[in-house]
């Protein structure tokens, strides 16, 4: 079975079929990550689609130098796209989709949709960078080093964001108690 690195080499040579293989291989993890960050499966898919368009353009223009692993690079594009989308959503004050409304062609159960929208409701007040860091650490199970590589910051900055995010969640809980 060809590796993702081989697929990347074929994409650079103009093989669009290789990009389809890359999407098939990586989209389940990326869509789960984006859904957790956005608090909506549909919004998560929109973010991942935008991220793939950016990734394709970058590959064709030779902007992926291969210094980081392809997974790390794709995670970085998805998280940056998600942060931009969260900021834009905050400006537009858009509410997330109703979890009770079924999305056509989406195989996720209503319970999964509810759990995803619970994240949006619970972490909604966190600044995008803190929210993404908390999702990567606690829901995706990545190490601080991996998160630092994805978010292009120091491990200290990751730890600081986690402390602040948890403090905000505690404060929120105190307010609700």
């Amino acid at each position, binding site marked *: 079975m060809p590796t993702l690195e081989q697929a990347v080499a074929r994409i650079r040579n*103009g093989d*669009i079929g290789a*990009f*389809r293989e890359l*999407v*098939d291989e990586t*989209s*389940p993890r990326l*869509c*789960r990550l984006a*859904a*957790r960050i956005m608090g909506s*499966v549909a919004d*998560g*898919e929109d973010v*991942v*689609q935008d991220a*793939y*368009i950016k990734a*394709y*353009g970058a590959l*064709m223009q030779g902007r992926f130098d291969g210094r980081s692993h392809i997974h790390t690079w794709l995670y970085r594009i998805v998280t940056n796209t998600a942060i931009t989308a969260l900021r834009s959503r905050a400006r537009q004050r858009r509410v997330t989709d109703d979890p009770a409304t079924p*999305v056509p*062609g*989406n*195989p*996720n*159960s209503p*319970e*999964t949709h509810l*759990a*995803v929208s*619970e*994240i949006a409701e*619970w972490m909604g007040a966190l600044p995008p960078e803190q929210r993404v860091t*908390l999702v990567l650490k*606690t*829901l995706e*199970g990545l190490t601080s080093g991996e998160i630092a590589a994805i978010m292009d910051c120091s491990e200290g900055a990751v730890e600081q964001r986690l402390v602040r995010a*948890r403090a905000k*969640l*505690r404060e929120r*809980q*105190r307010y609700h108690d």
Partner: protein
Amino acid sequence: MTDRDQDIEARLTRLARSTEAVVPSEWFTDRVMVAIDSKREPEWNSTIVRMSRVALPVAALAASIALMWAVASEHTWEEALAVSSGQTELEW
């Protein structure tokens, strides 16, 4: 660790578990490929860009060789002129 901290960690663990099974829609890959296709440059355009990446260094090398040849030719030409003008003076 306070009770609130434990509550937060427990809730995070529960949400991680209950969102573990999130999968993309059935036609997600098709949707991405259609979006990419609509944004792609025309085939001839990308071919020109790819070819120009190879052609540019070759053209730069050819230009350097041509410049060196032109400088060398100029010297030869001037030398030839000097000799012929000298000959003309002698004959005149």
